[in-house]
């Protein structure tokens, strides 16, 4: 009699398309893509990144978190019959039939060095480190290039006006992939400028909570040392009781 598969074996089997290389016999639907101009038949329904791997590429660059957070897999593509150059994160974009694509392995963008503790919280700091900000043409190319769909031009304009709140809020979800800077005709490094603006806003934009300052002081003064000394000598039974007796704060 054939041994029944365990739960773990069934789970592993169901996941094998994402944990190992894909076997073509498991694939029913296909599309054709063009990686740096060369045609490859790849399974439909994969991300650009997975499709390139299926085709035989093993990434060193252009793959990072694989979940849309790190900005390593910036990709430029065009669909056959369309003149438009589009941008995407390869790990978060489904592969489509007729995609011509290439990845951007590195962005040689300027990043200024500063000490935010010594800078004034006003617009001058942005122009001091990123003077090219003034060159913005309001062409909106950066916004169109942003794979996070951020309103990049709007936050650049807000920066020119010294509106730190708007820059910080508008750029917060930036993954610093560099696509805006690469497309910008005014050669602004939007994402690095916004990083400086956010840090200024994070440090000076709102009051530090009093409860935090109080707790920091208590810890530094050793307020909890006695409690911990007692706690660290507790028996396992005492630990378990302490845990079981915890009272949960109200929702």
């Amino acid at each position: 009699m054939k041994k029944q598969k365990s739960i773990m074996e069934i789970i592993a089997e169901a996941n094998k398309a994402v944990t190992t290389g894909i076997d073509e016999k498991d694939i029913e639907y296909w599309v054709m893509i063009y990686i740096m101009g060369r045609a490859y038949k790849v399974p439909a329904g994969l991300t650009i990144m997975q499709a390139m791997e299926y085709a035989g590429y093993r990434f060193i660059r252009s793959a990072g978190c694989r979940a849309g957070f790190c900005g390593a897999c910036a990709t430029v593509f065009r669909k056959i019959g369309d003149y438009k150059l589009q941008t995407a994160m390869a790990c978060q974009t489904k592969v489509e039939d007729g995609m011509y694509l290439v990845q951007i392995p590195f962005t040689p963008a300027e990043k200024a060095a500063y000490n935010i503790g010594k800078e004034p919280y006003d617009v001058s700091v942005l122009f001091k480190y990123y003077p090219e900000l003034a060159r913005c043409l309001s062409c909106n190319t950066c916004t169109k290039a942003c794979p996070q769909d951020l309103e990049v031009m709007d936050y650049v304009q807000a920066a020119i006006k010294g509106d730190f709140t708007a820059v910080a809020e508008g750029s917060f979800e930036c993954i610093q992939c560099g696509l805006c800077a690469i497309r910008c005709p005014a050669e602004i490094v939007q994402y690095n400028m916004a990083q400086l603006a956010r840090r200024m806003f994070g440090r000076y934009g709102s009051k530090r909570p009093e409860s935090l300052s109080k707790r920091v002081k208590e810890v530094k003064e050793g307020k909890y040392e006695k409690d911990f000394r007692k706690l660290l000598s507790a028996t396992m039974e005492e630990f378990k009781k302490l845990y079981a007796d915890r009272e949960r704060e109200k929702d």
Partner: protein
Amino acid sequence: MTVFIREEKMAELKFIEGYPEYMYELIKVVEQTRAKRKDYTPKAMTMEEREDVLKVHPDYAEGGKRAINIGVNKGDIAPNEVADLLEAYPLIEEGEIDLRKPDYTTDILIIGGGLAGTTAAIWANDQGVPKENILLVNKLRHGDANSIMAQGGTQAADRENDSPVIHFIDALGGGHFTNKPDVLQTLVEDAPLIIDWLIDLGAMFDREENGDFVEIWGGGTCRKRMHACRDYTGLEELRVIRDEFKSREIPSLEYEPVIELLTDSDRVTGALLWNFETGEYKIVEATATIIATGGFGRLHIRGFPTTNHYGATCDGVVIAYRAGARLRDTDTVQYHPTGAAYPQQIIGLLLTEKLRSMGAQPVNKDGEAFVFPLEPRDVEASAFIRECYVRDKGVVTPTGMRGVWLDTPLIDIKNGKGTVDKAFPGMKRMFARFGIDMAKYPVLVFPTLHYQNGGVETDPWGKTNLEGLWVAGEVSGGVHGKNRLMGNSTLDCIVFGRKAGISTAEYVKSGKKRGKLTLEHMKKYVKLLKEAGIPKERKAPILLPDYRGKRVLARMIDVF
């Protein structure tokens, strides 16, 4: 001439709101019970019930693990995938490397530029180690790390009704009372200091109108102490720390993984770097070395998908172990309860626990809320597996995965319309890219490999049993015991990155001389491998996983 193959067959499967028709129909069952579930939360499990459900957890289910046969932790249990890497040959052979002339000489070598490593560099610099005497090396780009993907938050007991002691007890119970108490004390006591430091650096935590932090629940906590930056907490923390690092112009290298440590008997004295693109090796001579290489999700333990980044391949543990570092808690692995189970493009990716903190409820295919939403992660994950594979109340996807619903529309219902947009822009964006609106429709989830609980044992300063070697972050073991709570990993990285930075700075400032550069430890280890009859082709560290298609691998010719 080009041959086109169109997506004709794709048209057969009808999609509604991003779901195949049959799944969309099943969502209606969830919608029908939603009003009733809105004010109902299943009871948290008793300790006995927890024990019972854990039987289906991948850590406790039969198979999957074995004893380590070689080295300091001989006899300890580890997942097969990890034990295999510990019992593997180095990438180099003795005599192949010329150790006479170091390419870099530094006071502090930091391996790995996630939150822990980057923090360590800044604090070492703050203690007076000049920037040019610090070197940070990265396998991939600086910041390509699990840190940047952390979504939910960072725990710190800074509110009036909370204290580091309560934080300690939460973490200890969540870790099944196996945490190393002295390091856990450091974690919870330093937590408020870390939040304070992050504010100095300009991190944008979620705030109330009056400037107070928005603090929310995490699984297994009895106080609301999670500090979040929308659902991009790790990204925000890493961005400000990395920006500070770069502003200080501390030297760093990218795409240069460490493939072996260098030793002088029981002291770590440097490392061997390998240029990922040219293949050239480089010798680093260092007074102190900090390993901050993260975890092992990309080993796909037990065949699970993972939330982890591309480089999470256990390298740090492998090289440290070979040099003689002691490990602990290698027998457990953390599976995050809510990995994406659908659509196929994002299988295994993380759906933050914060979703449940803010009211999203796990629901089975019959529309029943079957588990308290905020059990410790191993318990919650086990309850999902039981629902799908023991009780058969999961939903089967087109690719054959099973999952349970996470009823995300409840978040807006409970907290007001627009909450999902505001609190979870990252999650919302991820699903929207594949046609699903998670504010309107539930999403399908199943446990996913998330975190390396165990690792290299340390003292509260990140110091290992080997002289000259510190570790920080996920590569370490002990602070979380056999199960980590949400919000304690970003905290772990920054707390112990800082500690290691300070401690190594003190070590080098004490006038410590540099040691000899040898591969003696490797020679000894290879001897043990040979005696144990380990197959020659098994090599480590593996550096990266391999997802190339099977067809192309079968036809590959190694020409040059």
